[in-house]
């Protein structure tokens, strides 16, 4: 045993004698994780979060969250002698005087953007594959909270340097708070310590940004990962994969190495981007002054859609009972995001409620196999995209020389009309894909080869599906919609919940309607026989063709040393181009 092994063993024994950790290690070191590129999205979120934490600690050593006004004396010439808050002053100091300070600022901002982006994309992957279904609804709920917290964390950090752009963002946030009925002015005054902008807000935000939100996120991420660990990761269907197993690589060593390596890759890429691509150059914006504004400045991407909603909502401020109802701000800025969040929270329960079974799901859906869900997801994305476009309506109007008024009208219409259209189109596409899958299962894969039979008939030869594809298509679950409830039970007693049950059953019917039912075993068997027949018919032809000496690449000559017949060339080619999942049979 080497010295290092001895040391490690000694440590393991020490901990084990006090905690019983070896039993835990035995059980967990070879925990199996399935492999799929989309499962890395959650990892990207986790790793960029770690980068955010590391760089955030560094920045907190230099940044001063202080709104006291000072005169700039630093090396950045264009701002010399300008009055600014000490917060902005210290952000300039980090950018221009601290060696590597600008790099850390950029890494922090880029990793924060990647973090929020990865969280949202991860959320959609979980949504579209149905990974939120039983038993993972709790983790979905934790996830939605995480998504909201990361957005708040992003916004609070963006506002700290007290530059002109983020200050304008804060002014808008304050205006939004004022619009809340009854308590709006109180909410704003308590947060800002009085009137806007005051001198308290940056230091309050600082506590929220570096302590409260990261603490909540860290705690929730921990629970999130413990649940993923305990419940084991879902997997896509494939040969040998069932609802009762996990197929993949063991934690030690493959998954550990891949995940650990992936962390460094992500970290490295973020640093390289931060070295080369400038983000948030606060010195060109200047310090925040409440009577100045930079035209054409944009919020970070995750806040854009709310800004777009503010732009599109028509002026609907009115007075009633002696009070002012600022609905043109309250609805787009608070009610709509609130409704979006609530829909995200309750979706898994809604979907569970409109189907009959109560099973655990560990095999992921392909998006096409749940057309209504996929349609709803695409609808949400369309809604987001239209509003995000609306947040750039001034730039678009200038860029394409359009009238801004007309553009806003078009965008208002698009916000209402496009999402439902996206829903319908997506559902349609899903259903046709399902139909094609069914076709493949019963008739095999079209090869494009036409065969003329001795009696003159032409047929297209179908080939059997490979095991991978077959397993994927066969994994589809035909969900049963809720049955139509009976108004009276057998003894004629009226069902008191009849109306409610009928509503649910209708919704359920709408959700699962147009399901393309999976073929029965009998149909599949029948199809298999049919395919085998065709292959048999084609066989003599294939044999002749396999003997022909024509270069596989179409050339008529072959090079010395190259295999002679088509078949040999093909086999050589397959050997040279191994497909990771190819079925050698």
């Amino acid at each position, binding site marked *: 045993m080497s010295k290092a092994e001895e040391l490690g063993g000694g440590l393991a024994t020490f901990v084990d004698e006090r905690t019983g950790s070896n039993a835990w290690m035995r059980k967990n070191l070879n925990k*199996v994780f399935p492999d799929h590129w989309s499962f890395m999205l959650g990892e990207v979120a986790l790793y960029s979060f770690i980068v955010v934490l590391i760089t955030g600690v560094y920045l907190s050593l230099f940044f001063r969250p202080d709104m006291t006004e000072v005169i700039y004396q630093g090396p950045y010439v264009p701002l010399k002698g300008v009055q600014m808050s000490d917060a902005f002053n210290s952000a300039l100091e980090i950018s*221009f005087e601290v*060696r590597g*300070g600008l*790099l850390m600022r950029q890494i922090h901002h880029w990793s924060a953007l990647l973090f929020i982006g990865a969280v949202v994309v991860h959320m959609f992957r979980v949504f579209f594959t149905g990974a939120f279904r039983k*038993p993972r609804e709790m983790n979905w709920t934790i996830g939605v909270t995480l998504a909201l917290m990361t957005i708040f964390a992003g916004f609070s950090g963006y506002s700290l340097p007290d530059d002109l752009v983020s200050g304008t963002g804060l*002014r808008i946030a*304050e*205006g*939004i708070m*004022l619009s809340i009925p009854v308590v709006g*002015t109180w909410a704003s005054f*308590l947060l800002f*310590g*009085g*009137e*806007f*902008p005051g001198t308290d807000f940056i230091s309050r935000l600082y506590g929220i940004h570096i302590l409260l939100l990261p603490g909540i996120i860290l705690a929730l991420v921990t629970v999130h990962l413990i649940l993923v660990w305990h419940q*084991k990761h879902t997997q896509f269907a*494939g*040969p*040998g994969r069932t609802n*009762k*197993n996990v*197929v*993949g*690589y*063991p934690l030690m*060593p*493959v998954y550990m*190495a*891949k995940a650990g*390596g*992936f962390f460094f890759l*992500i*970290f*490295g890429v973020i*640093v*390289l981007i*931060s070295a080369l691509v400038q983000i948030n150059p606060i010195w060109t914006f200047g310090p925040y002054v*409440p*009577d*100045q*504004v930079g035209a*054409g400045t944009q919020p970070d991407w995750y806040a854009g859609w709310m*800004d777009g909603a*503010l732009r599109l909502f028509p*002026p*609907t*401020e009115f007075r009633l009972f002696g009070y*002012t109802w*600022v609905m*043109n*701000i309250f609805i787009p800025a608070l009610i709509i995001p609130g409704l979006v969040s609530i829909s995200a929270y309750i979706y898994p329960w809604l979907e569970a409620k409109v189907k009959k079974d109560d099973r655990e799901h560990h095999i992921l859906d392909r998006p096409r196999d749940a057309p209504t869900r996929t349609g709803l997801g695409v609808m949400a994305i369309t809604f987001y995209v239209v509003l995000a476009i609306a947040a750039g309506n*001034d730039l678009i109007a200038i860029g394409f020389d359009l009238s801004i*008024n007309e553009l806003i009208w078009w965008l208002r219409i698009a916000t209402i009309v496009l999402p439902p259209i996206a829903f319908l189109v997506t559902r349609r596409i899903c259903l046709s894909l399902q139909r094609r899958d069914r076709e493949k299962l019963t008739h095999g894969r079209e090869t494009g080869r036409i065969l003329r039979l001795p009696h003159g008939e032409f047929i297209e030869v179908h080939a059997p599906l490979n*095991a991978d594809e077959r397993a994927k298509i066969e994994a589809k679950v035909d969900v049963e919609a809720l049955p139509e409830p009976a108004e009276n039970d057998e003894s004629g007693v009226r069902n008191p919940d009849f109306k409610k049950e009928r509503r649910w059953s209708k919704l359920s019917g709408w959700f699962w309607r147009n399901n393309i039912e999976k073929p029965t075993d009998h149909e599949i068997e029948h199809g298999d026989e049919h395919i085998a027949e065709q292959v048999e018919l084609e066989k003599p032809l294939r044999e002749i063709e396999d003997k022909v000496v024509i270069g596989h690449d179409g050339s008529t000559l072959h090079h010395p040393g190259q295999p002679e017949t088509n078949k040999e060339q093909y086999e050589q080619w397959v050997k040279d181009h191994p*497909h*990771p999942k*190819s079925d050698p049979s």
Partner: protein
Amino acid sequence: MSDDTTTRVPAKTDDSVVKNPYSWPANEHQPPPRTTDLSERAAKRAARQVATMFLLSGVFVALFFVAFTYMSPTDTVEIPYLGEIGGQHVALGLTFGMAVFLIGAGTVHWAKKLMSNVEVVQPRHDFKSTPEDTQGALEVFEEGVEASTWKKHPVIRRTLLFAMALVPLPFIISLRDLWLTPPGVPNPDAMLQYTIWTKGQRLVRDITGEPVRAEEIPVGGLVNCNPEDLEAVEETEGNLNARAKAAIIVIRMEPDEIQSLQIPDGAWNGIIAFSKICTHVGCPISLYQQRTHELLCPCHQSTFDLSDSANVVFGPAGRHMPQLPITVDDEGYLIAQSDFLEPVGPSFWTITGEVGP
């Protein structure tokens, strides 16, 4: 599922299945062998590649040290497409980035080329507890409830709930002083009613602080102004609050171009002053189109017709921009007649004044 896939499963796995109940069997379906599985030379080459990457990572750390020590934050470099950026910033970023990236690249290469790539199968079990466990848990719980006398003494239950409901209040009440209310101010809404404009106060330019004469503003022109007292107020208050409410724009049009005014005798010879703070959510506005007399907010494109009482003609804002009544003093400088007659800035619950576009 031919034989050659199963023969690739290392013999070790089969042995350890017996020895270690937690090692899982290989999946019947395996990826094809890699070159590094088939040739020892390829495997050695891959190992060399991994080692090179780890070594290079160390080299980049050394280079980082050099850039940190011998370059200065004021160095700049010109990079095509990206423009001029700080030279030390780029050098530190590239060296640190490469040092980190190479560890990742080396590790992933190692995992992909050399580590076992046998997919294994671990069984899953439903999470639901057995009926015995559920029953047992219920019994333990019920015994506990019984032993606590929780059910026997409802008065304890009720008073405890009562106390628990109240006990967060001290903390919540304490939050009230997040805003240290100045003496004499009843509530936030009272503070939002006024600005520091007072009768007779001169309008001064926002950048230079110079007072403005009426004749200095040409027809079609726009000047950004603040109250003369602003600097002194900011000095004593130590914040920018006064500025966030008092900022105005002053424009001049031919008197016959004016269709209507909020305060008919608040303008002077076609010179009108309006709040600069958008009534939507508070952005400062100064995009003025003199031809149409329209003021456009850069934030959400609310548009106000300044020749017609600054009413909203387009966009999401719900109220007109309040007018500041002005006149000129003996020396010909523009002065305010009084404060605004209604609150400026974003609307709120108790705001008074004209509402609606």
